[in-house]
């Protein structure tokens, strides 16, 4: 799936698709269809046995069936409506809890004093859930009552009419007891068979939703016989690249997105974005540092996405070592590059497992060496559990600077030829910043690096600076020449490159 899919689709919906829909689809075969078979056979056997024992009583038992089917249908419709409401309310409660009881959510509520408002909103939703549950329970009781009443009426009818027949010697006592026993096995299967269609439809909806994911055409495809060069030196070029983000309809799945009414969308817009990159060409030799500078929305991050082949350009091409990335094998390309984002993601796992994500076969010594180069080894070593320390949800146990150095260590461990780096805009303290800069120096040495630069020191050290504005490279050169030309770069420089305006 393209990156846009993960930014648009609701996480809970993707999880639901992988867990609940699969279970629901499975039940279609293991439960619904097999139950229909069992119920049909059981019902036929029971009714045949009843007709064999006493046709009039068998007819009387079957005539009572609507007494259970009609209330079940009415109660079922209402319960399904109530259940949908309950799911919506519980979903809201779930989101409320997971957002408010996360590190970031709790911090926001504490700082903005929103606890009272949050508690009130939670309370309202809790009350709505309670009202809904009570109504559901009542309708369930109605349904169970109808079923129980019909079963009891059938038993009364059997004992009354059957009893009269026993008195008149037209029916044996044993037959009467057998009929009463069999009658208890009639209404359950009748109700179950009446629900087969609905269960089948539900199971098929699950199938449809699973196939929706399976059938989604990938936007970035590996060609059947990709090029697999023995080694990548890291020469990168872009030639006349035009790019715009694909339409939501192409990138995502409507049923995985939630509308303002809290329900899954039926359709997605079919319009792509405006042009994000316009006729971009560049070349970077192995070992060269290229700084990408420009205002917000200039296309710097998108450029990095294209280099990593998270998307393909609409026009023009991206090449590594002269080979178009669309011709390269995926594993060769991913093996050749690493990305260090501004806010690196850490899995809720040990430090060692997070680092080994880049190279699972790395030895403990190699992991430690990468951390030494990233200036983070001493810190990890000082922790009680060392490399076995859990990073916490999204790595919250570590500060921004520490997470970035861990991400740098992860990239060092991967040893890529091409490095895509988004410098942190957050203000690190001077000591941490010095450590991060040292770590970055180790990481970039000898690699083709593209840096979305926010710091003057990085820009100055770059071999070439590309200034982007509204998708075009408007200036290129080194620090001095660009300053002399007096263009956008000079403005950005005077505004201070660290400013968010330069972050893009």
């Amino acid at each position, binding site marked *: 799936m393209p990156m846009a899919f993960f930014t648009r689709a609701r996480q809970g919906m993707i999880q639901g698709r992988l867990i609940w829909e*699969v279970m629901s689809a499975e039940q279609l075969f293991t439960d619904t269809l097999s139950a229909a078979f069992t119920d049909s056979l059981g019902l036929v056997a029971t009714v045949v046995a009843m007709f064999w024992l006493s046709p009039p009583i068998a007819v009387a038992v079957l005539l009572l069936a609507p007494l259970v089917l009609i209330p079940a249908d009415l109660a079922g419709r209402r319960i399904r409506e109530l259940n949908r409401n309950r799911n919506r309310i519980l979903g809201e409660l779930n989101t409320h809890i997971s957002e408010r009881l996360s590190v970031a959510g709790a911090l926001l509520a504490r700082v903005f004093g929103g606890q009272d408002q949050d508690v009130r909103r939670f309370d309202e939703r809790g009350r709505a859930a309670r009202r809904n549950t009570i109504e559901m329970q009542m309708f369930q009781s109605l349904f169970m009552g109808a079923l129980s009443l019909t079963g009891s009426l059938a038993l009364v009818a059997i004992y009354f009419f059957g009893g009269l027949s026993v008195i008149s010697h037209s029916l044996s006592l044993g037959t009467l007891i057998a009929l009463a026993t069999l009658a208890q096995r009639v209404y359950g299967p009748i109700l179950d068979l009446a629900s087969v269609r609905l269960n089948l439809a539900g199971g098929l909806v699950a199938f449809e939703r699973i196939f929706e994911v399976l059938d989604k055409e990938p936007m970035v495809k590996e060609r059947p016989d990709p090029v697999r060069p023995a080694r990548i030196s890291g020469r990168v070029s872009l030639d006349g690249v035009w790019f715009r983000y694909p339409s939501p309809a192409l990138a995502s799945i409507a049923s995985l997105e939630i509308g303002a009414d809290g329900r899954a969308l039926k359709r997605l817009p079919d319009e792509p974005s405006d042009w994000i990159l316009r006729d971009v060409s560049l070349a970077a030799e192995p070992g060269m540092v290229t700084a990408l500078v420009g205002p917000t929305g200039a296309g710097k991050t998108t450029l990095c996405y294209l280099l990593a082949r998270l998307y393909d350009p609409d026009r023009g091409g991206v090449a590594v070592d002269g080979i178009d990335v669309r011709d390269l094998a995926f594993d060769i390309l991913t093996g050749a590059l690493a990305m260090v984002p501004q806010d690196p993601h850490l899995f809720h796992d040990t430090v060692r497992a997070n680092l080994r994500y880049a190279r699972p076969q790395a030895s403990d010594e190699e992991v430690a060496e990468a951390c030494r180069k990233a200036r983070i080894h001493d810190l990890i070593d000082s922790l009680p559990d060392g490399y076995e320390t859990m990073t916490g949800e999204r790595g919250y146990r570590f500060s921004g600077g520490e997470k970035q150095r861990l991400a740098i260590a992860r990239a060092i461990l991967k040893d890529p030829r091409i490095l895509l780096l988004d410098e942190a805009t957050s203000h690190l303290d001077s000591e941490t910043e010095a450590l991060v800069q040292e770590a970055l120096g180790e990481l970039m040495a000898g690699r083709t690096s593209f840096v979305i630069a926010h710091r003057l020191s990085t820009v100055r050290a770059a071999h070439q600076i590309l200034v982007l504005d509204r998708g075009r490279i408007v200036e290129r050169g080194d620090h001095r020449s660009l300053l002399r030309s007096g263009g956008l770069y000079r403005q950005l420089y005077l505004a201070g490159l660290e400013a968010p305006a330069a972050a893009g």
Partner: protein
Amino acid sequence: MRVWGTFWRDPEEADRSIDLDLIRRGWTFVRPYRRTLLVYLAATGAGSLLQVAPALLIRQIVDLALPHRDAWALGLLTAGLVLVFVSSSLLLVGQRWLSLGSAPGSSSRSGWRSTASSSACRWPSSRGPGRA
């Protein structure tokens, strides 16, 4: 009762038509396990027929064994009841094992899950049996 399960479904599902193509496509995941499925259906069929037997045996106990004070017939008929109940219980366990423990249930489920997961998370070179 399985009707209970329908109460938790989305109301819109009740109005949907049955798409046979979808069933056919879903069947492709189960097809490798069709022999197991047949054994499962045979076991459930036998189980549902056995449900009728206790009523008929009780009838014989009340109408034949008790009025004639026939202890031998009573013993045979109650032994028959025990046999029916034990067989039903064993069939029930067998059915559950066939539907969950072996195939097709768990196998097709894990197949769908890993295929859907790889479709969502990976680049498309490693597509599973989704196109089967």
